[in-house]
């Protein structure tokens, strides 16, 4: 494969998975992520991996559970309604401490909604999603290039912490064609020892992959261990980007596709002499709280922009913790905020 290629985000993700050493993919058709499933069908075949078009999203995530339990890097992808179906499996995998990568190219909801871009699944992604006390790492790329790179990162994080990792994009990011550099990891995919994997009990005791823990007090201990792990992830894996924050009156906050639009609004505002900055969370969980500290204590205002009724804004308010005013602008049901719309909101904040 050439180093510089033109690809849609979904395909960029697929190539990232292949170069990360993903050897198992199971998926089910749903728009707007079908390019990824088709790409994996082709590339798994070419790289001696396994591709299965499953009978449902539920079956797909459980096939991934099986492949992961057997010690192999595994991935599934879907879009919002399908991700709802996968929540059962994701909860089991978090409970079993099984690594996997799940891609959600969000579309408008609730229900069947539509197939246009949305960010309405933020809560579901960062608060756990399924039943029980657990978290998954959530990465939010904003370009095909990042989609490729974060997929490589996602597999490493999943194996490192033995936990599901989600890449949260939207239909815009998934289907837009962009040039990107394909840079495989220098020494090949990182290899993690998996002594827990089911390989057959040869020369060792039996391995059991389970999330049912019945002995009195044992499940609470297991939960404490999981929480310790989540605390460690919160300490070590926070990622985010800040632009012009120091030198600003208004700080835009956005992730994924919307962060790119917001960046353009910021530049338009700057051209008009308005001091506008941007905070862009890259890990949505763990949320980059600390990025807000300096800005929150220096009298700046925040404007959170999302393709939702206001979900990430709650985490921003928690991070700001009453130290500054936080406003919100959102579009729903497939509406995409334009640079001008965001700029108008910014200008209105200057008038108050």
């Amino acid at each position, binding site marked *: 494969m050439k180093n510089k290629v033109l690809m849609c985000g979904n395909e960029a993700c697929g190539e990232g998975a292949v170069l990360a050493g993903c*050897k*198992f993919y*199971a998926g089910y058709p749903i728009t707007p992520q079908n390019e990824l499933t088709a790409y994996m069908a082709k590339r798994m075949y070419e790289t001696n991996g*396994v591709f*299965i078009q*499953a*009978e*449902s999203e*539920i*079956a*797909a995530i*459980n*096939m*991934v*559970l*099986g*492949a*992961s*339990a*057997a*010690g*192999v890097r*595994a991935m599934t992808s879907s879009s919002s309604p399908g991700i709802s179906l996968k929540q*059962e*499996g994701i909860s*089991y995998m978090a409970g*079993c401490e099984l690594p996997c990568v799940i891609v959600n190219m969000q579309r408008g909801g609730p229900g069947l909604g539509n197939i246009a871009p949305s960010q309405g699944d933020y809560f579901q992604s960062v608060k756990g999603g399924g039943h029980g006390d657990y978290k998954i790492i959530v990465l939010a790329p904003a370009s095909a290039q990042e989609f490729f790179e974060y997929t490589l990162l996602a597999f490493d994080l999943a194996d490192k912490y033995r936990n599901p990792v989600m890449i949260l994009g939207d239909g815009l990011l998934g289907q837009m064609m962009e040039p990107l550099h394909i840079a495989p990891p220098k020494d090949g995919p990182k290899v993690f020892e998996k002594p827990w994997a*089911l*390989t*057959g*009990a*040869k*020369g060792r005791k*039996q*391995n*059991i*992959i*389970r*999330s*049912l823990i*019945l002995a009195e007090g044992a499940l609470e201990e297991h939960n404490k261990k999981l929480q310790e792990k989540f605390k460690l992830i919160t300490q070590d894996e926070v990622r985010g980007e800040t632009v012009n924050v120091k030198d600003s009156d208004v700080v835009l906050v956005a992730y994924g596709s919307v962060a790119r639009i917001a960046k353009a609004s910021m530049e338009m505002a700057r051209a008009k002499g308005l001091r506008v900055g941007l905070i862009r969370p890259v890990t949505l969980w763990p949320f980059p709280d600390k990025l807000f500290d300096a800005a929150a204590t220096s009298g700046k205002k925040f404007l959170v922009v999302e393709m939702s009724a206001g979900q990430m804004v709650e985490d921003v308010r928690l991070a700001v913790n009453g130290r500054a005013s936080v406003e919100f602008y959102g579009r729903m049901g497939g509406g995409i905020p334009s640079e001008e719309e965001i700029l108008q909101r910014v200008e209105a904040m200057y008038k108050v």
Partner: protein
Amino acid sequence: MKKTIKKTPMVKAQSSSVVTVGSEPIFTRPESLREAENHYCAGCGHGIVHRLICEAIDDFKIREKVIAVAPVGCAVIAYEYWDFDVAEAPHGRTPAVATGIKRVRPGNIVFTYQGDGDLAAIGTAEIIHAANRGENITVIFVNNGVYGMTGGQMAPTTLAGQKTSTTIHGRSLRREGYPIKMLEMLAVLPGAKYLERVSVHSSHEVLRAKRAIRKAFQMQIENKGFSMVEVLSMCPTYWGMPPIQAADRIKSEVSTFYPLGVIKSC
């Protein structure tokens, strides 16, 4: 059983269940079966089926290659009785989990152990499509006609007229529909290669069940594709009868609706 085996010295050479101490053959635990007190009710068939699986695994000397997938239901902690690798699956997703394992480890022997709620209700899509894809896995389907773990509710396999905690006046075909014959349903799928129904209500039937389970593993070892053994099993607790009567019920009632024998072999 111990008596019978003593009188049949041929068995000792063929089965891992029999070892000799001095010149005396005694009945013993298969290597694949852990030494543990099980949690099953008196007269339950699960213990017998667990053992038959372990005997087959020992006979084929595949303990170190086996990866089992345990269900949700009474047999959920089967891994505490078996001494080989086991994954737990969400309710009904057992064949999907087994598919993931077998596809990435085709050299291992992968089987699922499922009850009638797991396989014939919540997991119907997964079992049908695993069979239809011709996954080279073995399915052991224990059919006792009720949800045992949750307190004896109606299962898809509950017989007409059978009283359960959710069919208090007996299963009405008009209201609850008909008991499902999973093997006969799966038999129409070209991907399903070996389907047999057996029972564990008598020692004679237990031996037949053992042969069927062996055959199902052999199919997988020979890469012949999807095989499934349905085992009619007793649930005295939720049938509301003593163990012997429960065993008799399989003979007189359950097996007349669910006929024993090979449903499909190719």
